[in-house]
């Protein structure tokens, strides 16, 4: 069974159709890149998969491990293993990062009927991952993302992803706002999470990220549909020639 099966997905936002019959499959162990021009529906896809309110699904289905994902609330999806790394991670003044991380880990564990993680185990795990990502302890003591630079926010997203060990990772324009050093650290963090049971969707506008996170498959999204699928060479082709040719085909 495929990890994720999206069939003929039609989604509207504020009465405007954004996804128009999108069909996409992600296998376990696969890293799929989704590329597309501005306005092609990339972020809408990531939000719909994570369950953000305000998106109207008009037709189609989304199955995660054979289960209807669209029927679940965002927290239920998270507990099932869906993780969205936000393009713009939010600042939450007054909520300490460590408290947030622990609450999230234990909420998911409770939802799955598992025991909560002990405090020493939790701290050990966070320190280990933070060390890989070059996240200082001082950052973890601050409120979630408050006063973080763009790069720190993205590293914090990858920290959460590593800690929560999701089945399906969705990275929404993770490269936006990153300088080359931060891009390398974040990419290494993502690559460390690649695993045979885990699927990943990497949404990006540019080929640059895919130099660091090498995809198994590249899909081109245009006007709310996948218009072309290929291997990593497709990304180079897009970089060289632009999206015009594919978007014209879709039209």
């Amino acid at each position, binding site marked *: 069974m495929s990890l994720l099966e999206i069939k003929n997905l039609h989604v509207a936002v504020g009465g405007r159709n954004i996804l128009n019959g999108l069909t996409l499959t992600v296998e376990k162990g696969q890293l799929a890149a989704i590329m597309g021009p501005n306005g092609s529906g990339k972020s809408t896809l990531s939000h719909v998969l*994570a*369950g*953000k*309110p305000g998106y109207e699904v008009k037709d189609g289905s989304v199955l995660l491990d054979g289960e209807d994902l669209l029927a679940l*609330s*965002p*927290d239920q*999806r*998270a*507990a099932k293993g869906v*993780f*969205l790394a*936000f393009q713009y*991670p*939010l600042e*939450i*003044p*007054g*909520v300490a990062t460590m408290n*947030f991380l622990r*609450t*999230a*880990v234990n*909420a*998911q564990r409770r*939802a799955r009927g598992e025991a909560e993680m002990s405090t020493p185990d939790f701290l050990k795990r966070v320190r280990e991952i933070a060390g890989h990502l070059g996240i200082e302890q001082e950052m973890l003591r601050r*409120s979630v993302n408050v006063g973080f630079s763009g790069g720190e926010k993205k590293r914090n997203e990858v920290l*959460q992803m590593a800690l*929560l060990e999701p089945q399906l990772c969705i990275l929404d324009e993770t490269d936006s706002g990153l300088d080359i050093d931060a891009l390398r650290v974040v990419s290494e963090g993502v690559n460390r999470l690649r695993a045979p049971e885990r699927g990943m969707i990497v949404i990006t506008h540019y080929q640059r990220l895919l130099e660091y996170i090498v995809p198994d498959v590249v899909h081109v999204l245009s006007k709310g549909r996948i218009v072309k699928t290929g291997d990593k060479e497709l990304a180079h082709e897009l970089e060289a020639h632009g999206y015009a040719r594919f978007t014209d085909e879709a039209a």
Partner: protein
Amino acid sequence: MNAGIRQIRTAAEQGIAEMFAAIKGELPGDATERQRAFDVFAGAGLPHRRIEAWKYTDLRAAMRAAKPLASTAQAALSQGRSADLLAHIEARRLVFGNGRMIESLSDLADIEPGLTIETFDSVLGRDAAALAGDALAPANDDAAVALNTAFTRDGVVIRVAEGATLRRPLHLLFTVQGEAAAVYSRVVIDVGAGAKLALIETHESAAGRDDQINMAIDLVVGDRAHVDHVKFGLESENTLHVASWGMRLGAASHLNTFILNVGGGLVRNQIFAECQGDAATLRFGGVNLLTGRQHADTTLTLNHVAPGCQSRELFKSVLDGRSRGVFQGRISVQPQAQKTDARMMTRALLLSEDAEADMKPELEIFADDVQCGHGATAGALDDNLKFYLMARGLPEKEAESLLIQAFIGDAVETVEDAGLREVLMLLAVEWLEAR
């Protein structure tokens, strides 16, 4: 000519007048002062919405009838939960039943040098003039203060001598028993120069009780003295609770005061504060956690008279159901109060369509070299933040809880004692879990 103009009295006003006529002969203290105070009330009646200071809290409409005066409380009084909540804080507890200090339940042993505790009526017996307030005097024309002066005999007078530092906080525990009643009490606190006092005030009552509480607190903070005060309002959802504070700060003194309201049906905390000595510091924080038809009004009148004083107000309301949170703050800076640094912020979080926040911050500045600011915001929970938390696995309720705790967090942080901050957050979490 004026004799012909009569206030139309409500049943409650009529009841209060009858009670005063019946009891005034028995009340201790200066009878002339009681009569003056009663006349203030009789002239204006219960405060109502056309009186600016009471605009959002119409006591005349809310008070259907006047409860009879409380009978004397018995020694076998249930202390409810505030004693448990504060069990980890080694405080000297004074227990008040129906406004009267119950000596057998109060910790009056081994009183530290420099501390004196006397009941208000015993002080009145010795010094009839003690009825007239000190720090409360500027509020003598307020109807609630006037009623307190007219009726009160119970309460306590606490003096901390110059230079004394009290090792243990004082916990004033107020509760009620017997038939629901009108309870008047006066607390006088006089903190001498350079002295230090931590004061915890809790108010509780059994569910469903509809007492009418009117208390007045007269607090004088001496030069260089340091006072920490925290009030917990935990009374029944039907209680009418009006508390009036007179506060006067001496030179280089420090007063840190905080009010949490989770209980009460209609609550009014009115504070009349004056920074009278140079370079005094006043910090005033508060949190309302309200639901159902609860109404809590915090009204602060702060007068900067002396130069170089600093005042900070941070007040947060979380309003669910059909509740209503009111914050009025007026800071006046007199011409001689140069270098005043005053900041006031009030924020409301509305959790339901039917909740209402009324906020009225005001500055009145007559000095030219000051830094003053105020702000007010009201809004709902941020859906994007909620989604972010839910996307990490927090169920909706838990995500909201975390955001609400974060919302009140900086106000709670103004409380200096870590143990008290824990109690405040514990009560907040309880409130959130009961939502």
